[in-house]
């Protein structure tokens, strides 16, 4: 019975992540690419995303901390972050990048800093949610169950 409850929690949690816009269809695409020969594909890609994002957020913080901000460089970092969040389906992070790039174009440091703050928040949120999701998966597997496929 525990397995069934875990599976139900998993499905509900996944549904909420999509409903609340944390994840989009691209995340489902990642799940579709996972199979018995590549059972950890999603976790692997998401782990790369975490590493990459944290590096980029650090770079952004430093770049915006300079006396003379190099907005081209800032924009390049945001572009990268937009790309990687898009590739894993982290929709809210991706959506934060768009206004951020506008602020870069306007060369508005204050606005950029606000955008950075927002992106950091969204990133931490989605990171937390995904880690919760992976924990649930592990619990299901440990209890001998199969991870449900969610549309």
């Amino acid at each position, binding site marked *: 019975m525990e397995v069934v409850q875990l599976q139900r929690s998993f499905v509900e949690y996944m549904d909420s992540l999509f409903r609340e816009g944390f994840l*989009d*269809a*691209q995340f489902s*695409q*990642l799940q*579709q690419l996972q199979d018995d020969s590549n059972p950890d594909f999603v976790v692997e*890609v998401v782990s790369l*995303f975490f590493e990459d994002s944290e590096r980029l957020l650090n770079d952004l913080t430093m770049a915006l901390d300079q006396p003379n901000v190099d907005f081209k460089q800032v924009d390049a970092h945001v572009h990268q972050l937009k*790309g990687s969040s898009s590739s894993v389906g982290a929709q809210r992070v991706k959506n934060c990048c768009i206004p951020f790039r506008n602020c870069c174009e306007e060369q508005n440091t204050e606005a950029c800093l606000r955008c950075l703050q927002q992106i950091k928040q969204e990133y931490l949120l989605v990171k937390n949610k995904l880690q919760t999701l992976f924990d649930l998966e592990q619990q299901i597997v440990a209890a001998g169950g199969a991870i449900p496929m969610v*549309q």
Partner: protein
Amino acid sequence: MGMAATESQFHVLAVDDSVIDRKLIERLLKTSACQVTTVDSGSKALEFLGLQEHDKNQTNQPCVTLDNHQEAEINLIITDYCMPGMTGYDLLKKIKESSSLRNIPVVIMSSENVPSRITRCLEEGAEEFFLKPVRLSDVNKLKPHMMKTKCKSHKQQQPETIITETNQESIDIAYVVPPQVPQTESDNTVLQQQQQSQANSNNKNKRKALEESLSPDRTRPRFSSLAAI
């Protein structure tokens, strides 16, 4: 998948500076039964293809496993557009300017939908332009382009009749193609081309690989419900 003879597998060179996108494209291509080599820059791609004069003992290319590029018959190059240094467009140009490489089909990927960019790439000779994130339905469009190079190198016959848009109408549904998967036109086109090609033993392996990748327990026939955002 897991074929020992590399002859029957398509070999794709994927170029992208993003580690996440490299992982993604590699998985997508492998799902399509392709052998994949990934590199993180245009210059590394050219090195791999043998265009640049470099010592063969280059050690700073973790992704390159073949030390004799001549054995690495590349059937397709898929490259990101926005890369530091050499862009995907620059790479495309260099490939098309090379007498030895110009026949390799090149596909460009980009996260930005800029019509002038797309036109420029297609005019320069790119076969396709994919918007990122790239999906399985995009990768399924690659086989026809790769078949062109295979047939040319193996036999000297009818390379031009292989892939045209009109062939998509005459769909052969004798193979296992789940009806719920909408983007199967390219696959069916490929399946029909495989029938026409005279490399029969090669085709058996390709068909198997295609069927394996389309079998119900591996793919979820829900692509149609995944709305593109």
